[in-house]
């Protein structure tokens, strides 16, 4: 058992649950890894504070994911709203080298987010970029999915593309693919910076 713990928090309507299902689909169906997705259920999924979690078992020999919810410290935490920043503390993210990452949206988090600077983090104005580049904030999800694909490397790019095809309506497929590529590019830039910073 080699659990990869992912938690995404924001407000209802941002596509948090869709993003978590895309991660689960790409890992579980395309890569045939064990995966468990859980989500906020009830009124908060339609507005208010919402969350989703995915546990991926990177060990192909495992038979079953034991505890279905993501366990702290997380491997990856995605924070998309002001209210959600409250749960970010040093100890909730893994500290070992190369693992443990916080991704946050600097266009939806308007307040001060001091905690982020204390850990490996990638802050990007995701919704703003989605709106300016692709005309709608919904493409923020594909940007995030692109970032996720590159920084975690849990599933291949082919698996990610297959997943996007499964999840988005065909009329928006092209734009989603562009947003996905854009996200990938941003993540690659981040990883390069990180490498340079280390050397």
């Amino acid at each position, binding site marked *: 058992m080699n659990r990869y713990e992912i938690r995404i928090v924001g407000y209802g309507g941002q596509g948090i649950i869709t993003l978590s299902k895309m991660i689960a689909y790409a890992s579980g169906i395309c890569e045939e890894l064990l995966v468990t997705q859980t989500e906020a259920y009830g009124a908060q999924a339609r507005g208010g504070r919402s969350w989703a979690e995915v546990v991926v078992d990177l060990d192909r020999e495992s038979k079953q994911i034991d*505890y279905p919810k993501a366990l702290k410290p997380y491997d990856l935490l995605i924070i998309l709203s002001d209210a959600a920043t409250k749960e970010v503390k040093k100890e909730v993210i893994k500290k070992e080298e190369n693992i443990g990452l916080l991704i946050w949206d600097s266009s939806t988090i308007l307040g001060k987010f001091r905690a982020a600077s204390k850990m490996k983090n990638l802050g990007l104005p995701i919704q703003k970029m989605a709106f300016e580049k692709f005309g709608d904030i919904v493409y923020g999800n594909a940007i995030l999915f692109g970032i996720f694909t590159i920084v975690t490397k849990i599933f291949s790019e082919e698996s990610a593309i297959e997943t996007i095809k499964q999840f988005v309506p065909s009329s928006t497929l092209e734009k989603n693919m562009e947003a996905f590529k854009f996200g990938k590019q941003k993540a690659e830039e981040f990883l390069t910076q990180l490498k340079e910073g280390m050397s």
Partner: protein
Amino acid sequence: MNNGNGKRFLKPGKYLMMGNVAMAEGALSSGLKFFGGYPITPSTEVIEHLAKRLPEVGGCCMQMEDELASINAVMGASLVGAKAMTATSGPGLSLMTETISMAANIEIPFVFCDVQRCGPGTGFVTVPHHNDVGLTRFAGNGEFEVIAFAPMSCQELFDLTITAFNYAETYRCPIFILSDAYLGHIHEVVNIPPKEEILKRVIDRTIPEDTKGAKFTYEDITTHKLMIPKPYIVGTEFCPPLIIHLPHNQDGVLMPEENSLRFMKIMIDKIRDNIDKISLTEEYKMDDAEIIIISYGLPVRASYRAVDLARKKGIKVGIFRLITVWPFPKDKVKKVVAGAKAVIVPEMNYTGVIAEQVERVTDLNIPVIKVPKVATLHHPDDILKAIEEVAK
């Protein structure tokens, strides 16, 4: 009418499925033809999914005006030979108990899915609470036995629903599936086997070839052994002349008072005598275990992790999992707990319904420790703490 048999089975392969949907697909694979229900959080996805899928297989999904009508419709459908089920949550179950009691008495097979939510009363509708475990055991007036399953993953929701339908056909009684608000909404990969494999597992509703010699009785006249005939079907030749919800004989004729005890005995012993066949259990790291965890449903998954962590610390602990919660396998549990240092029972309720059953068969000098949790899942650390406490 579309017989839709081609659509009964999903294409074999892996699917990312919600728990409630996995259960509904398990029912369709078993040959479900009728669903009667009234939507209630957190079970609503079951009726939503079946409203779409049942017409595709030539079946019928009916949203009734309330829970009472729902369970009565299910009973009616089953009487005329359709595999039938309903899904609800605690408040719905409490309304349906009157009919469940009657169905048990007339021996009508159906599957009852209870996606439990926090109670009592209306409660918190979107959070889990295994607080109907006791109610399912005593779901209604009068004496009868039921069978209840406690799955813990989406794959099991699919597989155990098939087993539940088979048990309904075999033991002619209501079968419960104890899900909860959390399990019903988890998404996991479900492996759907080829239809040939599923069909091998499914017990169909058929009538005996020779209906003239058919028996509705339990007693084999020559050997005097208890046997369970197939469920009868109203409108066919395989049906007693009278169907009555009072103690009755093989022809459905009311039994005199002095024979009522015999009737009760048959109704209850058909389950109790077969407990070894009915009861499904699983063991994890039990070989050398001194501390025994007994659990069912989702807390088992937190227990796996707690046991692995405790084992790393050199504590000899194992899990005895109840896949069927009712009938409670008292002989198996008695054997398992004999000589243990302590027994830990993590349950998603405060009273410890199963812990009390465990206490019943455990020596007084062996502590039975409840680890209650309500409205949320056990964290593995909750269970680990209990293990470390008794290992001191």
